[in-house]
């Protein structure tokens, strides 16, 4: 598999949210606006790339039996670093993402890539894979956040699109599920079209 394919697979074909259905908790929980979605996506990308690098570097030093606990420690460390750095330099975003920052550690996407990809490939591929998957995740979260923000508040990235309050339900919890449902369906259709060609 070429590096380009390795990079782009995360956007449509193997999109972590729309196809693999991984990391749905943050995908639903923080996407009340496109900005929050993007922020969460980039934070996860940072953790994903960093832990992929470390895991691919130490993969030969770790005995198979303690592989998973070691990976958990590596991931949890990067999550805590993200947590501290965000609180220091982006307090507003830190406050709106709240509980979901420490919960990056149990995002199945991060553990999944460390275990399934980084532990079997060289560092360079692991970096590309981390960026591809992370940006695919960010793409999905920004899409969902944008959809909910446009329909629910009539805004995008805080820019007002039309007057009035919009359909409030899309900002609230049910809108997250319904919005994601339709985006997954849309991705299914796009993916099928691409494959048929």
């Amino acid at each position, binding site marked *: 598999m070429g590096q380009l394919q390795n990079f782009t697979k995360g956007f449509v074909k193997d999109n972590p949210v729309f196809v693999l259905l991984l990391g749905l908790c943050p995908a639903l929980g923080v996407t*009340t606006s496109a900005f929050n979605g993007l922020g969460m996506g980039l934070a996860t990308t940072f953790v994903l790339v960093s832990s992929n690098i470390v895991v691919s570097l*130490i993969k030969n*030093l*770790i*005995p198979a*039996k*303690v592989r998973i*606990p*070691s990976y958990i*420690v*590596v991931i*949890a*460390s990067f999550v*805590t*670093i993200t947590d*501290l*750095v965000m*609180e*220091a*330099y982006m*307090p507003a975003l830190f*406050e709106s993402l*709240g509980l979901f920052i420490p919960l990056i550690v149990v995002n199945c996407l991060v553990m999944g890539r460390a275990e399934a990809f980084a532990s079997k490939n060289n560092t360079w591929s692991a970096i590309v894979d981390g960026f591809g998957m992370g940006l695919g995740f960010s793409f999905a979260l920004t899409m969902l956040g944008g959809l909910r923000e446009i329909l*629910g*508040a009539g805004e995008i990235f805080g820019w007002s699109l039309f007057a009035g309050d919009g359909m*409030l339900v899309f*900002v*609230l919890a049910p809108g997250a599920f319904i919005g994601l449902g339709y985006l997954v369906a849309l991705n299914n259709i796009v993916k099928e079209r691409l494959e048929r060609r």
Partner: protein
Amino acid sequence: MVLTLMIVAATASFTLATVYNLTKEPILRAREATRQEAIGMVLPGFDELRAMSFMPPTGSDSLEFNLAFKDGAFIGVAVGTYTGMGYSGRIRAMVGLSPDGKIIDVVHLEHAETPGLGDKIEKGKSDWSDQFQGFDPGEQVLRVRQDGGDIDGITAATITARAYCDAIDRAYQTFKKHHSDIINKKTE
């Protein structure tokens, strides 16, 4: 095997301790900046602040009073207050009171209310909290209309509106209770 795990854990802890020490200062600075900004928003121009703290009549934690002076004259106080009545978790707010106890303005510091409903207490999200400007708790009732007060509630988020009133009322009641202390300390 155990050794490897211990090395991994030790490296991780060491890295985290380093990052923690590096970010400790900036985190405190960011928090202080939010606080200062809030004080600036609820009080008119001042050139000196003096911090005090008082226990409220109800509630477990003391409130932070920032007495503001301009050219030596007492012009108002910014009270950092809280409520436990929020829909999800504690709400904290900064309330600006004039020396005679009228509300100058209110701004939220921290909350976890539902986005789209309860977050209308934020100044950037809605002008709901503007109704507190110039509100006189001595004359009017600091409660939502549903509870027989003079504050308009938030549609579909009564709990949040009620809680916000509770936080502001806590600031006012404490101000009233310790009024003489505050007035006397002001010229020291």
